[in-house]
């Protein structure tokens, strides 16, 4: 299949989480989300537990996809950054390595400038982690789901 599964192992998730935690503190932002381009949440930091991160991830991914569509129409390779300014809360969205989306939610406690600066540093770190994820994906790993039986699948639907 053209697009293989995205598999994240504990080691990489831990490293991504560490980058998100540090970014949240360094940028003095409210929350950080790291979202796969297809809308799956990979890591969250800060006050993310107060948010509906599943919905947010899906909408952010939709937003980035739509922006990518606009870029294509305008023959621009990609718009890698987006900024939504609100009265109390603002959102800074950055595309990382064409695969992940880094979302920073921030309020008056910080400035857009500081957020951008810190995001730049975090982006480089995340890119290198994503390269490791891609490398790992190329070496065959054990498929833990190969052992799934029809009964396992049927059991999911017994309600």
């Amino acid at each position, binding site marked *: *299949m*053209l697009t*293989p599964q995205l598999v994240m192992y504990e080691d990489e998730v831990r490293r991504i989480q560490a980058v998100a935690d540090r970014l949240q503190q360094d940028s003095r932002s409210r929350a950080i989300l790291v979202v796969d381009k*297809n*809308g*799956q949440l990979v890591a969250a930091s800060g006050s993310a537990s107060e948010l509906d991160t599943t919905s947010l991830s899906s909408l952010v991914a939709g937003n980035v996809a739509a922006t990518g569509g606009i870029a294509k129409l305008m023959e621009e390779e990609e718009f890698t950054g987006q900024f939504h300014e609100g009265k109390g809360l603002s959102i800074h969205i950055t595309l990382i390595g064409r695969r992940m989306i880094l979302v920073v939610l921030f309020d008056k406690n910080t400035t857009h400038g500081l957020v951008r600066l810190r995001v730049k540093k975090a982006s480089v770190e995340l890119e290198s982690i994503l390269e490791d994820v891609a490398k790992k994906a190329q070496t065959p790993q054990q498929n833990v*789901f190969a052992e*799934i039986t029809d009964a396992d699948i049927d*059991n999911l*639907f017994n309600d």
Partner: protein
Amino acid sequence: MSFINYSSREINCKLVYYGPGLCGKTTNLQYIYNKTKPDAKGKMISLATETERTLFFDFLPLSLGEIRGFRTRFHLYTVPGQVFYDASRKLILKGVDGVCFVADSQMERMEANIESLENLRDNLTEQGYDLDKLPYVVQYNKRDLPSVVPVEELADVLNPTKVPEFEAVATTGIGVFDTLKALAKQVLTELRKGG
């Protein structure tokens, strides 16, 4: 493209409901949402116009339970059915794991069904997918209406590859969960192959 997270021990899969305008894609999701226990579902999001026509997509996250210690989550999406929203439809197909084609059984919508199915094939091809290799089911919706085409005739035209097919009345829920279960099973079976 399923997403397996070993850290949180979760499998996430994306299912897309496709079909012509007003065929009942959103109604399918609404019924699933209404009939699912609160702890197994997230918020349903509809990006719709003021007249409740889908503008970008509907989104419904479902959690099905555990399989081999991994929580299985399905993200259900619909596409906007209206012809002129084609650019949006293409975006929503990105990373899809399984497709449900919802056909409108009414005689007068036959042409729209055919056009939408062709559009589905074209858009998948553009994204590098082949409908014949993806988990895929067909639903014949609106079976309660007076001017419906017999299922055999619908199947001849809309399901030549004989994938699992279901009769449905999405407004009352007939066939809705059967369709979803059949698709989810195919997706999980694909996962077993390491798809």
